[in-house]
């Protein structure tokens, strides 16, 4: 299919573009799921049943991946906004490298907070 060509990237920039789209779609699905979750708040029993499954050690890996998606999408998004203002095109490799570092750090910190909250 034509859209597969998005993923035939030629440089780290193309890879970042492909991931921006993938994480965007994942987060869109999560948004819809989240709205369903909020619907469950109408019943204490239903909410607590759902959270007992999803707020658990077994689910932490999914939560951590979600944080990775969110952090990557946000940090890469800021990078794109900077470039769309016309700034930093000459230094785009540096900006990409810095964004990657910030994204990884954000992921580690977010996952750590998540893990600590579970452990209490």
């Amino acid at each position, binding site marked *: 299919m034509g859209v597969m060509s998005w993923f035939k990237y030629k440089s780290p920039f193309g890879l970042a573009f492909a991931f921006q789209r993938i994480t965007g*779609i994942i987060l869109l699905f999560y948004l819809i799921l989240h709205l369903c979750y909020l619907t469950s708040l109408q019943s204490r029993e239903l909410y607590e049943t759902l959270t007992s499954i999803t707020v658990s050690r077994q689910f932490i890996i999914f939560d951590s991946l979600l944080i990775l998606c969110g952090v990557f999408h946000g940090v890469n998004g*800021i990078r794109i906004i900077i470039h769309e203002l016309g700034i930093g095109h000459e230094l785009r490799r540096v900006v990409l490298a810095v964004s990657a570092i910030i994204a990884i750090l954000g992921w580690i910190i977010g996952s750590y907070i998540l893990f600590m909250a579970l452990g209490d």
Partner: protein
Amino acid sequence: MRGFEPLAWVFQAISGIAMVFLITTHFLLTHSSHDLLSYDSVLYRMTNMEYKIFYALLLIFVTFHAFNGLRAIILDTEGGMRKKGAVNAVIVTAALIAIFYGLYLLSKF
């Protein structure tokens, strides 16, 4: 301004920047300790006016950003561009439904 695309682009950027802060705050508010996700904690936040405003803002920004992003992806395809009017209409409708549903949920507390 030429049409709504420039506005959509500007708001996509603004909502993106706003969300970096809003979502980080939301994450910390709900995950920095274990009991924050208990039914009582969630209920406390949902009935609190300040939180409600925060959640309403987050809902509007996230929904706009997500559906506008999806619209960009669809319009990048041959089929999507051919049916541009329909795509725009469906996306706007879906986004409005999501926003109103979310606001409706918030109002029930």
